[in-house]
C-alpha cells in the first residue's frame, strides 16, 4: 500500500478534476472516510485555484507539485509552486455574518481552507511557495 503519492499538475483549472481523483483514490486505498476526503479535496482545490488563477504574472506553463501522505493519525498534503509569494495564513478573515446585501464575493476559498483543515504551515523557499495542510484522522 502506498504511503505517499506525488503528482505534477500544470497551471490550468482543468487539472483540478485529476487532483480530486488522485486524492480520492489515495484516500480510499487507505480506508479514509468520504467526509475527510471531501474536506481535503475542497481545501486542496481552493489552494490550487488560487495558485492557478492569481499566482503567475506570465501566461506560460508552470508545474505545481502535490504530495499526499499518511502519517500516524493524520493525512497531509504538501503543495509546491513557483508562483509569486502568497501566504494563505496571512490572508484577511472574511466576515461570514454580514447580511446578503453586504456579502462580498471574494475570500471564501481561504476561509474554507482554514475551517476544513486542522493544520496549515507556509514557507517561501528558493523562489517557491510551500504549503502544508494537515487533517486529523478521527
Amino acid at each position, binding site marked *: 500500500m502506498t504511503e505517499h503519492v506525488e503528482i505534477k499538475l500544470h497551471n490550468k483549472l482543468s487539472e483540478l*478534476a485529476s487532483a480530486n481523483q488522485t486524492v480520492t483514490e489515495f484516500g480510499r486505498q487507505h480506508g479514509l472516510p468520504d467526509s475527510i476526503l471531501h474536506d481535503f479535496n475542497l481545501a486542496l*482545490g*481552493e489552494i490550487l485555484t488560487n495558485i492557478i488563477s492569481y499566482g503567475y504574472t506570465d501566461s506560460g506553463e508552470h508545474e505545481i507539485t502535490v504530495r499526499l501522505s499518511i502519517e500516524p493519525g493524520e493525512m497531509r498534503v504538501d503543495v509546491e509552486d513557483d508562483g509569486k509569494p502568497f501566504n494563505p495564513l496571512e490572508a484577511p478573515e472574511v466576515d461570514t455574518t454580514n*447580511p446578503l446585501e453586504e456579502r462580498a464575493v471574494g475570500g471564501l*476559498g481561504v476561509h474554507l481552507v482554514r475551517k476544513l483543515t486542522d493544520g496549515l504551515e507556509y514557507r517561501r523557499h528558493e523562489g517557491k511557495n510551500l504549503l502544508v495542510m494537515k487533517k486529523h484522522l478521527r
Partner: protein
Amino acid sequence: MKELEITQQQLQSTIVLHVVGAVDSNTAPELQEALLRATEAPTGGVELDLAKVSYMSSAGLRALLLAAKALQKRGERLTLVNVPPQIHNVLNLTGFTTFIDVKA
C-alpha cells in the same frame, strides 16, 4: 474536461435546476450562468437540486451568492434541495444558510 450536467424544470412559478457533477472553479461558470439566467424570470423562485453534486467549492458558492442577490431584488430567496451533508456543512461554515433556504 469534466463538465456539469444541468437540467432545468419549470414547476408552476418555480424554476428548478438539477445539477450533476463536481462544482469546482473550472465548472462553476456553467452553474453561475444557468442560475443567473433562471433569476432573470420576472417572478417566481429558483430551486437548485444538489442531490447529485459531490462537491461545491468557493467558486460555486460565489454563483449561489450572486443568484441570491439577484433574487433578493425581487423579494425572492434561493432554495437548495437535497443538499448532501458535506455541502450543508460548507454552507454553514460560510454563513450562507442565513440568506439561502436549505431543504435536506
